[in-house]
């Protein structure tokens, strides 16, 4: 009896055992589509090196889909290349290129439709409308992909990594350029963006809309059309990122709009027209960041409240700070301002004279932009000097009571 039971089980398991199917010119399957029709959940599909132009490929089973020798999946500029409509799918090692371009159904190089636990890693996405598109995804990992497109206008290109109504995503080590937004989050929660490089995108390097409880660490955002935007979101943690060379009329290192309860720590803002631009922002902790060689280090509008700025370095910015009103509801403490000229008698590294970081000219320009014509004029510099000594036009409570004497080692 036992023997029969055991052999029954064996037969059962052998039927359950996952298959490995190979696709290639020398294999039984030379095309991917027929192979995809024959797979069952748990199978592995290995695609050998080659050029596969088969329209839209749809994965509807939980499989591991691996490319060997970077096989090319081509969308012929007409189709979405790869659609994932099953849970537990892994896509690895493909060159995915030339997806169609349509603003109605937003085709992507890889698009995930309401699936959990999808892994997309080590792919090369070239010239797609959207690079990787995740809608209603959960627990997905997007790792080490290189995503390149050549968009010239915002309307004619999608985002590099586009996530919509998703949760618990991990976006790690991707390299994105030439899309509209490098990484785009809308209604995405509990997700982490780590070690990505996003550069030369037309609009933002990273863009948050209505996404709460997310974090991004150690990313590099360089030379994007308008920097990074975090809007209408709560509890976003931003740590150790670099925002560089976002230089232009409407370019910001980091644009914060209608967000609250976030944490900005240890970031570097170099060579941006505005390092951080804050509007309608409240309860943010801005700590230990470096603002260097920006046009404006920090533009903090009067609509911001209860933000705390502590232990930041302001080095070589044209204007350290500017604001558009006289209302100040934010706290500045123990920052280092390279323009500070006070003294420190008791040598505790805290200046004895409070510092007014707001220059008269920045207030004038904010009220009256054409006055920028007088930038660097001797008259304006004289006005600035006298205003520093006896503040009359600049808000009196816009003040750092404990300015540091030496830059922090950040």
């Amino acid at each position: 009896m036992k023997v029969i039971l055991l052999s029954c089980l064996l037969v059962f398991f052998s039927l359950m055992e996952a298959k490995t199917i190979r696709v290639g010119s020398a294999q039984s399957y030379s095309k991917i589509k027929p192979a995809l029709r024959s797979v069952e959940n748990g199978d592995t599909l290995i695609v050998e090196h080659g050029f596969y132009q088969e329209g839209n490929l749809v994965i509807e089973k939980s499989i591991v889909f691996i490319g060997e020798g970077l096989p090319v999946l081509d969308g012929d500029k007409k189709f979405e290349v790869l659609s994932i409509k099953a849970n537990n799918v892994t896509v690895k090692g493909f060159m995915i290129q030339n997806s169609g371009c349509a603003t109605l159904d937003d085709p992507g190089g890889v698009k995930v439709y309401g699936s959990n636990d999808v892994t997309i890693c080590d792919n090369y996405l070239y010239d797609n409308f959207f690079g990787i598109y995740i809608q209603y995804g959960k627990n997905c990992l997007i790792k080490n992909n290189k995503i390149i497109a050549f968009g010239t206008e915002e309307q004619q290109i999608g985002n590099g990594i586009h996530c919509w109504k998703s949760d618990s995503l991990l976006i790690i080590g991707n390299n994105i350029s030439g899309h509209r937004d490098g990484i785009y989050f809308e209604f995405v929660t509990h997700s982490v963006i780590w070690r990505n490089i996003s550069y030369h995108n037309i609009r933002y390097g990273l863009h948050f809309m209505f996404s709460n409880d997310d974090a991004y660490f150690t990313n590099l955002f360089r030379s994007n059309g308008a920097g990074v935007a975090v809007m209408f979101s709560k509890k976003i943690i931003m740590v150790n990122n670099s925002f560089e060379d976002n230089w232009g009329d409407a370019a910001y290192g980091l644009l914060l709009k209608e967000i609250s309860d976030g944490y900005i720590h240890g970031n570097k803002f170099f060579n941006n027209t505005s390092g951080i631009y804050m509007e309608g922002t409240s309860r943010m902790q801005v700590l230990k960041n470096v603002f260097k060689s920006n046009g404006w280090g920090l533009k903090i509008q009067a609509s911001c409240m209860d933000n705390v700025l502590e232990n930041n370095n302001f080095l070589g910015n044209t204007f350290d700070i500017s604001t558009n009103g006289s209302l100040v509801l934010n706290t500045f403490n123990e920052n280092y301002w390279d323009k500070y000229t006070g003294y420190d008698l008791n040598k505790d590294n805290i200046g004895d004279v409070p510092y007014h970081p707001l220059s008269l000219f920045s207030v004038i320009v904010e009220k009256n932009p054409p006055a920028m014509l007088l930038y660097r004029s001797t008259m304006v510099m004289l006005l600035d000097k006298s205003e520093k000594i006896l503040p009359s036009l600049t808000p009196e409570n816009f003040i750092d009571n404990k300015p540091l004497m030496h830059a922090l080692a950040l």
Partner: protein
Amino acid sequence: MNRIIKFIFLDILKNKIVLLYTVLLAAFAWSAFSLEDNSAKGILTLLNVILLTVPLVAILFATIYIYNSAEFIELLLSQPVKRTTIWFSLFVGLSLSLVLGFLIGAGIPILIYAPSDVGFMMLAIGSIITVVFVAIAFLSAIITRDKAKGIGISIMLWLYFALLFDGLVLFLTFQFSDYPIEKAMIVISALSPIDISRILILLHLDVSAMMGYTGAIFKEFFGTTIGLVISFVILLLWIAVPFFISLTKFKHKDL
């Protein structure tokens, strides 16, 4: 004419003041470039120095020199030389020596630290500004025979262009802040050679992005070749107009 220019040129070069001016400019320029960590910032620092000191030295030195050479001019007038030739030679000799002083003093460090188009722009503008203020000095020196009054006028004109004009512009921008005055500002900036020079350099220093909408309009005008040509023509007008007014006055003057 050439012999008079040569004589005046050598006379001024022998004068210790132009030498001192050269040394001072050199000291400013070297320290500006070695104190700032990048050459663009050095250029910006130097820009302020140049737009302040170069006009001052040019206008004061030229005015005083003209008054002091009154006897020399009278001597020349007794010779068979045309009045135009005398006045023109005086102008060219003075301008040449001061431009040479500027090019040696500030030009060498600029060429070493910032041999870019901004650097060359700076050299061109420094030279033109020198000549502009020499021309203005000629005008103020011919207006009155009284030396103290003439120098007074020169100092007032310098104060006006270097400081007061910007104050007025600031006042105007506030008075008319409800109107789209960006384009009018371009015209107004043409009314001061110092302002037009500063804007030209700033727009070439890639800080135009900071100027926002205003900057975009300025860039649209000053950044194009036509705008560049027009602004240089305006600067040349700033040389030609004061000088020719002074020339006509000199021609009819009873010395």
